[in-house]
């Protein structure tokens, strides 16, 4: 096989073997698919960012003094932060597979991704997407609720002074609530401080700090909104 003939040999092979170029559509679909994955992961990343942000901003950081560091760790939005990391990695991986994606360094792409995710995520948070989603998830099956919104689990420890639930009856200095596990509690609110934008209305979900006095009785020290700007409460 001589060099001078290689192009002719290739030409003959193309004809003899009936080789045809792969359809343009196949490449177009592949290119579009990569960009769809890149933008989808950006949007889903922004969505999870808004939920993580909501959880962090609404976390009861001030209770660190009372319940310790373990309480803070328990309340961090691990699921959303992990999802955010996974979608960022997914987006970066597929961006690099786009036509010119390889030209930028990994940290540049990650930086751009973080900026866009933060901007879109903050927008989602401000327009109430995270709030709406949290409320929707709260009405969903318990198993998802406990994984996605660990606030439920953290605030279901009456023996440790942490209780939460939906208000079912209101009387002077007394509330009746039903906790996430379906137990009914009579809460004495006579000496309780109401924090932030807590709404004492039937059907509203609230958080309560205090002491368990009986199997279904609780003496409240503080009433807090289920979701609220607790960072701004102090």
């Amino acid at each position, binding site marked *: 096989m001589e060099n001078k003939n*290689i192009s002719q040999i*290739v030409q003959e092979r193309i*004809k003899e073997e009936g080789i045809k170029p792969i359809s343009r559509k196949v*490449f177009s679909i592949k290119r579009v698919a990569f960009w769809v994955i890149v933008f989808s992961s950006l949007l889903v990343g922004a969505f999870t960012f808004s939920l993580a942000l909501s959880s962090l901003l609404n976390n009861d950081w001030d209770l660190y003094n009372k319940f310790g560091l373990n309480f803070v760790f328990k309340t961090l939005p691990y699921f959303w932060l992990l999802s955010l990391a996974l979608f960022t990695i997914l987006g970066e991986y597929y961006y690099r597979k786009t036509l010119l994606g*390889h030209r930028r360094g990994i940290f540049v792409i990650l930086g751009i991704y973080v900026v866009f995710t933060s901007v879109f995520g903050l927008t989602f948070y401000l327009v109430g997407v995270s709030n709406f989603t949290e409320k929707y998830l709260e009405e969903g099956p318990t198993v998802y609720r406990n994984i996605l919104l660990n606030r439920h689990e953290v605030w279901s420890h009456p023996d440790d002074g942490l209780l939460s639930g939906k208000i079912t009856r209101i009387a002077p200095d007394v509330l009746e609530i039903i906790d996430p596990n379906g137990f009914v509690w009579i809460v004495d609110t006579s000496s309780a401080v109401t924090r932030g934008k807590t709404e004492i209305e039937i059907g509203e979900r609230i958080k309560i700090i205090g002491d368990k006095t009986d199997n279904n009785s609780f003496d409240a020290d503080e009433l807090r909104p289920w979701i609220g700007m607790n960072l701004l409460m102090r």
Partner: protein
Amino acid sequence: MVDIHSCENITDEQLVELSLSNSDNFLCLSKRYEDKLLRYIIRISKFSREDALDVLQEVLIKTYYNLNGFDPELKFSSWIYRIAHNEAVSAIRKKSVRPTVYMEVEDMSKFSDAFDMTKDIDNSLDRKVIDEALSKLDEKYREVLILRFLDEKEYVEIADILKKPISTVGNLILRGKKLFKEEYEKLIIKN
């Protein structure tokens, strides 16, 4: 069909379109790149000419087969070099040999200019020294040095061929040059 002698004034991109409408026109494209690609394959693989021609044949077939996947946002030469690179690397793996570098006489002057070694080359130092020094380098350095100084590719073209960030290519060339000089000097002393 475009006459083989008149395709010199036609751009690569136009030839791609012409090849898609008539496979005979692909001859112009393959003729244009066969020598450059053959040299490149031999440089990075040190295959015999016969083996390198086999690789080149597959490169040209793959190029034709994937011709619709060429996007003019990339240079055609970068795109076909990428196919050649992948095919050569795949062939090296199949043969399970550590690639060494083969340099032709004309490559020596390109390399000596780039590394400011003219004096040594004029003193007719064995070109095996450069060959050996390059072969001792890690693959990631060797491939960028070959593309930069022997195939005379720009950073962005190397980035497109190897699918690496431009900044990484810059760093690899810088570090590769330094490592090459160290290896070269060691071999000079040893010899």
